[in-house]
């Protein structure tokens, strides 16, 4: 094949209102094949509605969606085998074991029953194959529901808040699964309200708030574009606030009960000055994160 490859997802100016509330208010983005794309924002930002319109579960009031060159709305049976969707609630059949869930969902796509075991291995649930879905832990259920979305080997995968309500260890296990899926060459579009997670996983992110996309780029680019100071945190008592302010390159310094935090845009000379003073014990360096980007864009602290 020669020529430009068509993008996996093209969303152009979609809109959806519920009465007065503009849930999605002119959202546009494009996702390239093989890309890991995140839609971020606090609860109620319009992430899920956006995703549902893109998946073809909802009709937008306006705008256009194209997936792999096809329209998802109205229900397009030609497109369905090529997309995999994990819904926000874990949707399973009653009383079936993990393997049976995968076999049943697989059969809807004409997939052989053996695929179920491959999927269990992919998401690390091989030893839970014969456990009923309702007896799995939250993280295991999430991994199973992702496996159900992947059972027919789709090109394009949509995941809605896959890591919501998981403990930190389960979240990290799931990250490995998501990376493994991307390594298989799938295009992934996912929503999350964990900005730190998106920063680690995504090639590109769109930050949403109140139905609109506020910024869209690679996480590192967004953070760099902020021109935000780096924070150096020291144990309290190693250095006075005044002494810290005296160091060249330090913009500000403030103290709380346990630590002294120095803000600087030139961390290298500041760190060597601190090293000369012998105050590196327990030192932490914090660069800006997507949360700072959100604060900068909306003027308010990020609250998931």
């Amino acid at each position, binding site marked *: 094949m020669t020529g430009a490859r068509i993008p996996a997802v093209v969303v152009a100016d979609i809109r959806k209102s519920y009465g007065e509330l503009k849930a999605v208010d002119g959202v546009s983005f494009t996702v390239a094949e093989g890309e890991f794309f995140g839609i971020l924002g606090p609860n109620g930002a319009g992430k899920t509605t956006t995703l549902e319109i893109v998946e073809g579960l909802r009709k937008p009031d306006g705008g256009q969606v194209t997936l792999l060159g096809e329209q998802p709305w109205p229900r397009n049976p030609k497109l369905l085998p090529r997309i995999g969707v994990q*819904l926000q609630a874990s949707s399973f059949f009653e009383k079936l074991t993990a393997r049976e869930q995968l076999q*049943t969902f697989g059969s809807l796509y004409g997939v052989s029953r053996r695929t179920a075991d491959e999927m269990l291995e992919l998401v690390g649930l091989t030893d839970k194959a014969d456990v009923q879905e309702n007896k799995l832990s939250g993280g295991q259920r999430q991994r199973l529901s992702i496996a159900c979305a992947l059972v027919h080997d789709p090109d394009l995968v949509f995941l809605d808040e896959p890591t919501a309500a998981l403990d930190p260890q389960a979240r990290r296990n799931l990250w490995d699964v998501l990376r493994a899926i991307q390594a298989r060459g799938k295009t992934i579009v996912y929503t999350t309200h964990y900005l730190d997670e998106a920063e680690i996983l995504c090639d590109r992110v769109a930050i949403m708030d109140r139905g609109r996309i506020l910024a869209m780029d690679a996480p590192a680019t967004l953070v760099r574009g902020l021109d935000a100071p780096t924070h150096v945190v020291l144990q309290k008592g190693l250095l006075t606030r005044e002494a810290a302010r005296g160091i060249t390159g330090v913009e500000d310094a403030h103290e709380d009960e346990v630590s002294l935090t120095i803000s600087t845009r030139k961390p290298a000379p500041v760190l060597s000055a601190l090293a000369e003073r012998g105050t590196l014990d327990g030192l932490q360096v914090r660069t800006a994160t997507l949360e700072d980007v959100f604060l900068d864009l909306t003027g308010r602290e990020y609250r998931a």
Partner: protein
Amino acid sequence: MTAFRSLSAAMVKGFLRDKMTLFFVFLFPLMFLVVFGLLLGDSGSDKTKIAAVGEGPVLSTLEQTGAIELEKHPDVASARQKVDDGDLPAAVVVSGDRVELIYAASDQVAAGTVTGIVSGVVDKINLGAADVTPRFTLETKSVEDASLKPIQYLTPGILSWAISISGVFGSALTMVSWRKKQVLRRIRLAPVSTTTVLTSRVLVSIGTAVAQGVVFVAVALLPLFGLRLTGQWYLALPLLVLGTTAFFAIGMLVGAFCKTEEAASGAANIVIMPMAFLSGTFFPVENAPGWLQTVSYIFPLRHMNDGMLDVLVRGKGVEALLLPSAVLIAFTLVVGFIAARIFRWED
């Protein structure tokens, strides 16, 4: 494995692993069958029990009539006491050739029955003793009448009721739970047709109904209950199928309106319970006032009951299926159409 087969298999497994559903589909109606069958089914209660003192041909002939049960007493006083207390309607005292009948004045019907039978027996023995050729002869012949023994109407009635429970609850709860858990949306995103999903669910319900039929009839056939199947009992099969589709459609309607499983169970009960009582599940509707019988004809369960009674215990043939089948098919189509129109994939 086709989508149809694996969806059906998934639903059968889910059904068999859910003890609560199994209870309501099989054990709960079976409890009614057992309780009512035992309460109403004691055939001994048809006989009138009277006290008896003494012995001789009169008493032994009385026992052979099959209508009188004798309670032996050693003396007249204790027999008389039973009648005085109102425990027994009458006492018959035989001493030599003299037969004395004492009866309670309070129960005229029982008294009439007992007097008639005892005097009939005495007359017959007198005739035999006099060695006279009777001038008149009486010939009796028993016919199978439409008024049935309790187990005979309980079995078809409770079976139909149980099928209405499994049909309505099965479809309503599946729909509500699948919608709530977004299984419906997930299925919608798979390249499988609505018809496949729907027909596999209906097929599971029909299978359940047939299983209910086998279990209930088998239990009722036990000597303890004594059900007697007459005629072409296999004609009940089309009724099982059509009844299931009609109740399935009603369940779809309930499921389309209700958002939670709790609401759906409540609504399903509101539909089923009055229908069960007015359709002759627990007692024959023929005993009800005329206007109530007219009302009962609006229920599909009434027609299913009638059909089941006719083919299971009244010995009727295929012609008895016509009206019930037509009504059940009409119900399925009309209610199913309305349910399809208000169906929602999601809340």
